[in-house]
């Protein structure tokens, strides 16, 4: 399938960090079945760092590879560093994505961002209660 780079194929065949986190600190969802790709990212945060990231993805080969590499790029980063992971960086890290897949399948960075938002919002609420 030469439409995908070797790196995409490698991550598609051996995706890292598949799964869910029990009692996650944040969850981020993106996509819908009409476009064909849906991602759920789960994060565990410790001392402002992403201690663990897991994902579940419904979608094409590109979507699965994107999810895998985003999880790998994110683990161990501070939240601010993780915010700097963009769709372009993800595509570069995967040695390129087919043009028509760049927007629809490259949702991993957005899902991760949503999970971080979710974490910060929860934290804010808890802070308010204290």
């Amino acid at each position, binding site marked *: 399938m030469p439409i995908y780079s070797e790196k995409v194929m490698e991550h598609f065949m051996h995706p890292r960090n598949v799964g869910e986190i029990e009692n996650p600190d944040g969850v981020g969802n993106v996509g819908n*079945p009409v476009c*064909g790709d*849906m991602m759920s990212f789960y994060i565990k945060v410790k001392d402002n760092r992403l201690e663990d990231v897991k994902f579940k993805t*419904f979608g*094409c080969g590109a979507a699965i590879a994107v999810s895998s590499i985003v999880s790998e790029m994110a683990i161990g980063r501070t939240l601010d560093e993780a915010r700097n992971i963009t769709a372009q960086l993800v595509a570069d890290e995967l040695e390129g994505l087919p043009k*028509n897949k760049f927007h*629809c399948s490259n949702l991993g960075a957005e899902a991760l961002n949503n999970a971080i938002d979710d974490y910060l919002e929860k934290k804010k609420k808890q802070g308010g209660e204290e």
Partner: protein
Amino acid sequence: MRQVYLDNAATTPLLPEIADEMMPYLGKYFANPSCLHDWGDAPREAMENARLQVANLIGARSEEIIFTGSGTESNNFAIKGLAMARQAKGKHVVVSAIEHFSVLHSAKTLEKWGFEVTLVPVDGQGLVDPDAVRQSLRPDTVLVSIMHANSEVGTIQPIAEIARITRENNVLFHTDAVATAGTIPVDVTGLGVDALSLAASQFYGPKGAGALWLKKGVRIMPLLDGGVQEGGRRAGTEDVPAIVGLGKAAQLAAGSLTDRLNRLTSLRDRLLAELPAKIEHVIVTGVALPAQHRLPGHASFCVEFIEGESMLMLLNIQGVAVASGSACTSRALKASHVLIAMGLSHELAQGSILFTLGIDNNHEDVDYVLEVMPPAVDRLRQMSPLYAKFTRTGKGGG
């Protein structure tokens, strides 16, 4: 590793004896069949022989066969050419919602040219209701086009019944028989149509070779203007090797139709029965067993909770070549218009997978698919948020 080609709806392999038949026309019989000198004789005779072979396949007369460059060209020619030749009578055309894009997009072009188009719906099995065609007809309807069979879900339409309605109403009827000609019996008189498209690339002939059968006396506006090839209806020097290949493919198909049909049907029925038995939450798309109104080599499914392209990729790695109607596999990134017209949800349509068998396939190929498919599905489901939701809540299954 075992290599199993199950994408015969995309195209069939070229049979070696057909390639052999074509070779001289790429070599010493290169001449233009329109030429009057001796060099033109052999290509011209070969072309007329091919015309007869194609006519024999569909129960037609050879002067009614117009060679084209593809099934797509035949469909464009029929839709635009027949409608335009009748625009003085009216500017309304009827097609089904699940036609091939070469028909649907031609109809769209007609709209730009001032025609109105009615799309006839299909039911959950992809069948057109002849009564719906009857109800769509208007005094200004000039053309109806309904495909003989759909290559995505394999459904064979009640063409003869629809033809009775178009005849009663004096409306021309074209059928796209690209998926059926050379695969199941196709007889233009029995079907009762006025025009029919076919293509060699679907029955072991070469690409670039199609034909439009046009009933004697039916007028058509040419798409290509130029010389008087094909009776002035399709200008341009003929692709003689491709035409010879089409003719040979037609001859071979006519001689072995029943054998091929029985063989493909037995393989198909195993897939239709055993795949949903082996994998939970798999539905058959199109006509399920006993699958009478279904193409003999055609088994199509939707696998819930996962997406077609990733399934296709995992099977490809195992040496199995298949197709999918998911959004991700289409260049336009839209889910199959056929599955959506049949009322499937987008979620389900994304899990589309399509096995189209050919005469080279055997029971070991089916065994192999049944062996490699369940772990591929399981693997993707373990990654799927939709499956996780389903196992948690018991909801989301269809």
